[in-house]
């Protein structure tokens, strides 16, 4: 695998995704039930998780996964918890921005932030959906 090529692709696409997440969170500040914005943050986090996983950037994968799971809970609930949820989402975004910047500057994403992960995993929003890692895992049967 041409790591340099994929790292550049990752940096370009992750930076765009983070800008989209930022715009969507600002929309959710105005209207916490804006489903397009909730979906968008979920998809962007999912996409960053997939790219980071392919490059073995474990700390980015973990943080993006926590953000994705949190958004999955909000998708089920139909709205973001503006009081506690939004600040946690903004902190998640900030954490991802720092990690992506670290990849750009040093080639590595840096260490995970357990406090931030705990914050994002702390509650799944008003829908009360458990984060995926707490739900029972069942591998799909191949046809």
């Amino acid at each position, binding site marked *: 695998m041409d790591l340099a090529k994929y790292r550049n*692709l990752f940096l370009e696409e992750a930076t765009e995704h983070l800008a989209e997440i930022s715009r969507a969170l600002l929309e959710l500040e105005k209207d916490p039930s804006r489903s397009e914005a909730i979906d968008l943050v979920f998809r962007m986090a999912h996409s960053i998780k*997939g790219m980071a996983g392919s490059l073995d950037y474990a700390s980015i994968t973990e943080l993006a996964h926590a953000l994705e799971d949190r958004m999955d809970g909000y998708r089920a609930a139909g709205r973001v918890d503006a009081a506690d949820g939004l600040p946690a989402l903004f902190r998640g975004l900030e954490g991802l921005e720092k990690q992506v910047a670290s990849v750009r500057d040093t080639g590595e994403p840096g260490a995970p932030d357990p406090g931030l992960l705990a914050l994002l995993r702390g509650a799944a929003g008003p829908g009360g959906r458990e984060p995926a890692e707490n739900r029972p895992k069942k*591998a799909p049967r191949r046809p």
Partner: protein
Amino acid sequence: MTRVLIADDASFMRQMIRDIIDSEGYEVVGEATDGVEVVEKFKELHPDVIMMDIVMPKRSGIDAVKAIMEIAPKATVVMCSALGQETLVMEAIQAGAKDFIVKPFKPESVLTTLKKVLEKGV
């Protein structure tokens, strides 16, 4: 030569799949970036296999599988999923997808899955 359509909203992932399968002589006939475009490109290009992400904008991968199955019930769709998406993968298989691969992709896993679905003649 087997003709493949790749559907994923992330250009990173489309490039990675393309690089993996190009090296084994598959022909990538097109790429789609959302669940609406993949159905349109399927109708236009008639690929032998579609490699499709589950989470996509405009229309989810599962809805896109359902639409493709209505057009061509024997179409061969391989879902590209991620850890934690087991329920969605099962839904896609029930909708007609033939198999799945899990991100992060291992090249051998992508190629083995492609070979398997093609050998089944589905």
